[in-house]
């Protein structure tokens, strides 16, 4: 009886331990070969970093009217925006080189790149603000909905000249630009895929799609105190230069 009891206890402990290890591994996104995902596919809350290998950006198909001179002008204005610490806006906000804090609330998802003073607000289950009252902005007006396991974000209302306007792969944003993003968790929630599709009748000959894949940072991550951008730092200003000084026409 004693031997039998011992066997039962040992078996139970092994089973309990196995369950614990399995649960722990799945919680850390390391479950092997599980049929069902061990993560909530809607739980994109967390800190994310875009690694160097996380970008797949094809060349955009631009309209014939888009000349090299136009692209160069936008590039120079982008440098001006960086020099003067202007809000960068989308799309640069999604590749600032710093971790991005994404938090999903009941009505709003906030996307906050570290050190960027202007987070993105993705409003769930809403319609766009009327263009009659919306003041175009560097981040635009974003609304979001879940389609299965994908968060689909639709953004319009970009400011044509403010912030960094160049788009990865070529082209630039205008006040006619329309951006659709699809956020999906991969690899048991450890990777966040975001595909960006830009359309603009003034710039693109075909929808321009590219993908970024972000790695999840540990839950204990904390943003470092930001080195705030100072437009009056002379050393910094001299290093960057200003190839497109301010003129009222650029407002």
């Amino acid at each position, binding site marked *: 009886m004693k031997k*039998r*009891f011992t066997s*039962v*206890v040992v*078996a*139970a*402990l092994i*089973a*309990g*331990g196995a*369950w*614990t290890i399995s*649960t*722990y591994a799945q919680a850390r996104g390391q479950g092997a070969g599980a049929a069902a995902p061990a993560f909530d596919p809607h739980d994109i*809350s967390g800190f994310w970093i875009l690694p160097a290998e996380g970008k797949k950006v094809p060349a955009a198909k631009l309209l014939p009217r888009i000349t090299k001179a136009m692209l160069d002008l936008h590039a120079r204005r982008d440098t*001006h925006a960086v*020099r*003067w*610490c*202007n*809000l960068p806006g989308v799309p640069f906000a999604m590749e600032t080189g710093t971790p991005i*804090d994404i*938090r*999903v*609330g*009941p*009505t*709003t*998802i*906030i996307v*906050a790149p570290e050190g960027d*003073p*202007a*987070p993105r*607000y993705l*409003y769930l289950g*809403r319609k766009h*603000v009327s263009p009659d009252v919306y*003041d175009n*902005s*560097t*981040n635009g*007006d974003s609304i979001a909905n879940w389609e299965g396991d994908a968060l689909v974000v639709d953004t319009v209302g970009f400011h044509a000249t*403010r912030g960094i306007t160049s788009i990865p792969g070529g082209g630039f944003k205008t006040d006619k630009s329309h951006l659709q993003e699809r956020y999906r968790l991969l690899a048991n929630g450890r990777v966040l895929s975001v595909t960006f599709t830009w359309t603009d009748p003034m710039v693109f000959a075909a929808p321009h799609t590219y993908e970024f894949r972000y790695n999840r940072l540990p*839950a*204990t991550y*904390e*943003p*470092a*105190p*930001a080195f*705030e*951008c*100072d*437009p*009056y730092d002379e050393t910094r200003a001299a290093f960057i230069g*200003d190839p497109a*000084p*301010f003129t009222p026409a650029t*407002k």
Partner: protein
Amino acid sequence: MKAACVTAGILAVALAAAVRPSAQTSPETLKGIERLEGDWVRADPNGSGDFGGLTSKFTPASLTPQAAADMQAGRRAAGAPRGPAYTDDKPHEAGQAYIVVQKPCAPGPFGSGGALGINPDSGAIHFVISKNEVILAPERGGIRHIYMDGRKHPDLSRWTPTGAGHSVGYVENGELVVDTMGITTGGVTAGGWRTPETHLIERFVVSPDGQRLTINYRWDDAKIYQKPHEYHYELDRLPAGSYAFEEWCDASDPIEQQSVVPPPQ
């Protein structure tokens, strides 16, 4: 045999509980504070006219002698001459702007890094409530991260003070309570003072109808206050469909320095 199985089961569950990773704040513990989510703007029902009037009915801070001296020194430094533009004492013709700001859009103790998430000004603030972190985003720049997963404040010897400091929160009676320290040295509403060691306790109370938010502030630091310095702000919820405005400031645009109102001499 039955007793053996029961015992084994209990042991297994106990072992599992002992070695599993500690649970993060579960969504259930956020119950009540989801009502904070959304957009709020200060109501200031107690005074107006100027910034001093808005807080004129607050109980002034009761400072220790050393803190009072520190605050006076800090104010003298802040009140130093702000540049040659302020020596302009001639009335301007119509259409001729006054230069009232030497370095517009510059980073500073307010308006950047989420500092206005503490004692917000007339700009709106926005809450996003998620299970391990609450975001408080002042419209005029940056965000406050309020960690809800039970973590502690960092050792201040390894922390660079910021305008927003380091905040940890918990839910008590359906209200969000936030403990903040590590804020840059500076002034506090109603004659207060603070250093990175000072603790700020905020309690966010939403009215039963969900339309009014009261933020109760309590500044606690025995080196600075003879008794904790307390006051509260009241905010109104913005209408449904409201959204965060963008605070655009272009330091390269000369108009950012200008005003039609003469600067104070």
